[in-house]
């Protein structure tokens, strides 16, 4: 299927043109990065924790099938129904069947990136189920019919005035009242009745533990606990890569997660779900949706170590200045740019290029995913799979040929000098020249280093003279 690649550069340019949003977005996320640094500095064992976390994840992924089956056995023993979903469609069908069997028409849910991946809400809406997000940021995005722009703070690209307008449209509140506390209260008043009368509840899961058959949900608003416990039917959707072998392993991840994400020592709620409440039901849906295939990719399988903390997004200078929506995908930022192409190479072929390869993402990653090296590697894969635009591919091909031929190269350099020195300004700075849109070009020079050297070091030793023969 031919699908147009995401125009990240264009969307980013639009985002940058809006100064109030850009400035807030950059400052807010940079503040999270700095708070993360402060937390790192109070833990002398920070790097050891990262190494340990990475090793646990790599071990779990290397033995994934065994740990998944161990979890299933133990979870069933705890009274949890365990379902297996090969892809998003199967996941959605399982959810719909659970709801239909109980005549459930309303579902409250806390934030879950996997359900975004599966596109659950439209599927259920088409079957007459009303889905209400209970996480504040996710609810704002739901009301505004947008994807989350960040995996931890889904509406971080919005200002309070944007939220006031959205709430006014849906909740009838004052569109000009943008005090955050008032807005939070408006959401609370709107959400509580829905929560109290919901037929079923849904959460994600940050980790699930093979040896105990239990799972853990980390949140800051308490909405996941309400979603899980109030209705009596709790469905948890979790990606298969989130398994850890032992309860003892959890401590490593809990210590890293919120410190990396928000720069707080721990999330407000770290809830362990061990089985259904009295008279209730608990379902865990383990979702593959491309993960097994990713596990088989030599260069990219370690992206499955991700614990979805968002630290790579917060530190990414490109993400901070382009906004998550510019990636046009469920997962944005550096981690998105290495995961998204596994879902659709053509559509997301531009994302690995939305990076300067600066490497800050790799350094902050709590599970040591070599994100910038995978971005680099993805570019090679995309070129091999013919996903690079033809013109760019040809330019690279011609440049590569030119660079192998010293004589031609010298002639080309001389041409550039002349052009920079003699072309009128409008010719250098037009719409065909993206460099010149917001930047001046370097000034032309009288003499290249090459010419200077020939003039100033005439006593060239044998073998040093310019016997420019072309290499084949």
């Amino acid at each position, binding site marked *: 299927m031919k699908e147009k690649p995401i125009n990240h550069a264009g969307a980013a340019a639009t985002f940058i043109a809006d100064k109030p949003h850009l400035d807030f977005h950059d400052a807010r996320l940079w503040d999270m990065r700095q708070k993360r640094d402060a937390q790192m500095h109070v833990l002398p064992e920070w790097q050891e924790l990262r190494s340990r976390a990475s090793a646990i994840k790599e071990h779990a992924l290397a033995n994934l099938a065994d740990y998944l089956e161990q979890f299933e056995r133990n979870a069933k023993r705890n009274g949890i129904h365990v379902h297996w979903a090969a892809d998003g469609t199967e996941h959605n069908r399982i959810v719909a069947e659970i709801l239909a069997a109980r005549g459930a028409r309303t579902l409250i849910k806390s934030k879950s990136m996997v359900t975004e991946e599966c596109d659950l809400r439209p599927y259920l809406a088409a079957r007459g189920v009303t889905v209400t997000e209970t996480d504040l940021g996710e609810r704002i995005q739901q009301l505004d019919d947008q994807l989350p722009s960040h995996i931890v703070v889904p509406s971080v690209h919005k200002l309070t005035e944007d939220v006031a307008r959205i709430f006014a449209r849906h909740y009838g509140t004052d569109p000009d009242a943008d005090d955050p506390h008032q807005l939070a209260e408006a959401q609370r008043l709107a959400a509580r009745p829905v929560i109290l009368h919901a037929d079923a509840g849904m959460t994600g899961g940050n980790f699930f533990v093979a040896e105990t058959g239990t799972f853990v949900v980390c949140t800051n608003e308490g909405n996941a606990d309400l979603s899980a416990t109030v209705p009596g039917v709790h469905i948890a959707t979790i990606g298969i890569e989130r398994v850890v072998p032992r309860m003892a392993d959890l401590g490593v991840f809990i210590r890293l997660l919120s410190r990396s994400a928000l720069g707080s020592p721990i999330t407000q709620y770290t809830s362990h779900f061990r089985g259904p409440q009295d008279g209730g039901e608990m379902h865990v849906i383990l979702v593959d949706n491309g993960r097994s295939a990713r596990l088989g990719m030599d260069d990219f399988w370690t992206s499955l170590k991700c614990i979805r903390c968002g630290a790579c997004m917060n*530190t990414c200078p*490109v993400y901070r200045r382009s906004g998550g929506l510019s990636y046009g995908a469920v997962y944005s930022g550096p981690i998105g740019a290495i995961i998204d192409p596994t879902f659709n190479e053509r559509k997301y072929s531009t994302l690995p290029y939305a990076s300067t390869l600066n490497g800050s993402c790799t350094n902050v990653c709590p599970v040591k995913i070599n994100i910038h090296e995978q971005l680099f590697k993805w570019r090679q894969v995309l070129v091999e799979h013919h996903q690079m635009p033809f013109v760019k591919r040809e330019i690279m091909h011609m440049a590569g040929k030119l660079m192998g031929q010293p004589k031609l190269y010298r002639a080309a350099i001389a041409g550039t000098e002349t052009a920079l020195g003699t072309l009128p300004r409008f010719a250098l700075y037009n719409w065909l020249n993206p460099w010149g*849109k917001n930047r001046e070009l*370097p000034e032309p020079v009288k003499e290249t280093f090459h010419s200077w050297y020939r003039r100033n070091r005439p006593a060239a030793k044998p073998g040093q003279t310019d016997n420019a023969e072309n290499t084949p």
Partner: protein
Amino acid sequence: MRMKIGLFVPCYIDAFYPGVGIATLELLERLGQDVTYPQEQTCCGQPMTNAGCVSDSAASEALFVRLFAGFDAIVMPSGSCTHHVRAHFDAIEQTDAVRHVRANTYELVEFLHDVLKVRDFPWAEFPHTVGLHNSCSSLRALRTASMSELGEPAFSKPMTLLSGVKGIRFATPARPDECCGFGGTFSVSEEAVSARMGLDKVRDHHQAGAEYIVSADSSCMMHQRGCAERAGVNIRFIHIAEILNGARQ
């Protein structure tokens, strides 16, 4: 220790900043080194490889190895080119000559700091406040300075070298490790983000009180200078080789 050094001058320095190449050459000669600039040199191949077009780097890499395999050390005033030669020279067969070149290629700062172990530059005086910009290749790939993300003990090879220059003062920007947004072809394919990052970078240094931005990478500075000039940010740029070689401004 007198070494036979091959000088590589990156294409953009050759064409736009010849003074940086001259300063690098003169500085190495001043330090008693036997320096040769092989005149057939073109490019290290980085632009093609970083775009994903690895096979298109083969001709550059083969030429590079042919020209430089005979030297004890290959020195270049560029972190990203050094990183390319050392870590990504994969388009050609890995012969002994290729391995020799990869293992003996140095960025100028690390060569001065680690190999020649120079600490004093008595001929140099730069009575100005400078903000140091480490390119991401120098910082996170070559590790010429400590990285803020890791919380490791602070060190900075370029800062150590510059501290041997009389009269120099340092300004500390708020986000010293933030990428300036050059990124090679990124500067054109993601023009808006790139230019915005560059503007933020030069403003950060300017607000910290820097008269000059000094860096071991001219590519970052070519981009930053362009952003500063267009936006009217009053700051100047100088390569670390020029200061260490005794440039007076």
